[in-house]
């Protein structure tokens, strides 16, 4: 038995709250700034308590955008981010689960070569091949399109590996049983394997949605039209103008809005999130 004395426990609580404060302070500050007047912030006289401009700032941010630098409603940027994140997450899950199914449940020539071809992509993050990829997407006329935003990020070795690993643990008896019932490969996949994979898919979805929503370098390169901007790109463009002209309350409101969906997913689906994170890193 290792009992913690009262004093040590007290210290632990204090350290944890300090940690939480450090983690939360920048975000709190952003929220506070988003409710205050720009002139006050620009003077460096910002208060540490929320101001009275909450509704006005968020209304302008979501429906109008900044008056100077981008002029694009952030609501529209969020929609672009949402479409991109969903396409990446669902696309990855869909193409990975069927290719893992083929690799585990069939024997065919080049099976292992194909597996390795997919596996090696794990080592090629988009950052190391940005310009050639950009050129291909441009040649395919996919700049400023949802397809161009999501397709190059969809191929995922992690998801394929994860499903492969999971399928290997599914007992062979299930396949034999459904075969006796007269099920072919489609029926078995749809009626047996897919329902069994539900938790894995959900955990993966949580992680992939966050990764998709937070994409930055790739959308930065391939979106040129303002109405195709994602929220992460929009926020950078808002602070490009000289400091004096930056509309900080709107920038900070955009930062808060950019954090909201992924943070919500982490907090509400915490179990799936932790599971997804641990599984994808294996």
């Amino acid at each position: 038995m290792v009992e913690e004395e009262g004093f040590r426990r007290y210290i632990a609580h204090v350290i944890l709250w300090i940690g939480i404060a450090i983690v939360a302070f920048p975000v709190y500050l952003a929220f506070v700034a988003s409710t205050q007047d720009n002139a006050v912030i620009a003077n460096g006289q910002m208060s540490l308590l929320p101001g009275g401009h909450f509704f006005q700032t968020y209304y302008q941010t979501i429906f109008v955008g900044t008056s100077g630098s981008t002029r694009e409603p952030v609501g529209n940027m969020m929609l672009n981010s949402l479409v991109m994140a969903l396409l990446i997450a669902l696309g990855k899950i869909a193409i990975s689960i069927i290719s893992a199914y083929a690799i585990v449940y069939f024997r065919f020539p080049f099976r292992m070569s194909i597996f390795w071809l997919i596996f090696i992509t794990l080592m090629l993050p988009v950052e190391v091949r940005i310009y050639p990829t950009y050129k291909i997407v441009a040649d395919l006329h996919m700049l400023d399109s949802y397809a161009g935003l999501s397709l190059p990020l969809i191929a995922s070795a992690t998801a394929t590996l994860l499903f492969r690993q999971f399928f290997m643990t599914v007992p062979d008896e299930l396949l034999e049983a459904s075969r006796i019932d007269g099920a072919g490969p489609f029926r078995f996949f749809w009626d047996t394997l897919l329902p069994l994979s539900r938790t894995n898919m959900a955990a993966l979805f949580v992680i992939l949605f966050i990764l998709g929503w937070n994409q930055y370098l790739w959308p930065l390169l391939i979106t040129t039209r303002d109405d195709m901007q994602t929220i992460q790109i929009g926020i950078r463009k808002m602070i490009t103008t000289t400091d004096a002209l930056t509309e900080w309350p709107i920038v900070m409101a955009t930062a808060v809005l950019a954090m909201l969906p992924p943070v919500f997913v982490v907090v509400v689906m915490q179990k799936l999130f932790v599971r997804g994170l641990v599984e994808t890193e294996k």
Partner: protein
Amino acid sequence: MQKQAIFQSKLLPYALVAPQLAIVLIFFYWPALQAMIQSFLLQDAFGLSTSFVWFENYIELFRERAYFEAILRTFFFSFAIAVSSLSFALLLAVMADKPLRGSMLYRTLLIWPYAVAPPVVGVLWIFMLHPSLGVLSRYLRAAGIDWNPLLDGDQAAALIILAAAWKQISYNFLFFLAGLQSIPRSVIEAAAIDGARPMRRFWTVIFPLLSPTIFFLLVVNIVYAFFDTFGIIDTMTRGGPGKSTETLVYKVYTDGLLGGNLGSSAAQSVILMIMVIVLTGIQFRFVERKVTY
């Protein structure tokens, strides 16, 4: 490892792997190959003719002082980010591992920054420590520090490291906590019975048992510092002032985009690729062994 129960079909498996294979070939292998080929080519100033120059782009690159400095800088950033973020996260995880009231609440309140995107992290931190309007800058100046990360390169570097480490705390915390919870209680109790005080228990029993997690996280953090800091740097300093926060990935981006020097940018990409492959290789070798103590 192979399944015994399988389906028989000649064409179906190919149809099933086709979508993924197509994307992998078009968007991974083709561009990677292009980068490799391009790194051996030199384009003239007007883009009219290209010639095969063997390793000239690479040699040129290593002669360039800026590239050498970018390599050193990237490694320094990675090291500083990994060490600061890991040690703080470990402290929090050790505290949260204790049987405390509200430990689930603590976990929730500490893991959510994982979901904050790097560019947003950059915006939050530059706002907090902005030379003219940052809330914390007031205190720094009051403490007699001439704080201006937009002009002072060292301060800019410190800011990037702090912001990048901040974002990574939650990830490291989560894995440390999982690692700590997988250590059998009986081992710690045995040490306690032998009379080891908490500090000693931590350094002689818990820390060594945690070494696989630490090593795994070290590699993950280095990869993170290499690639995911791009968004932080781009919204905060854009590689400046001067080149004091330009990392390797940032240099690939600026050299290809602004400089238009595609041959050099491609050569840099290939070098980065090799670095990632080495890092991933280390990680896999390690994860396979699972435990080493």
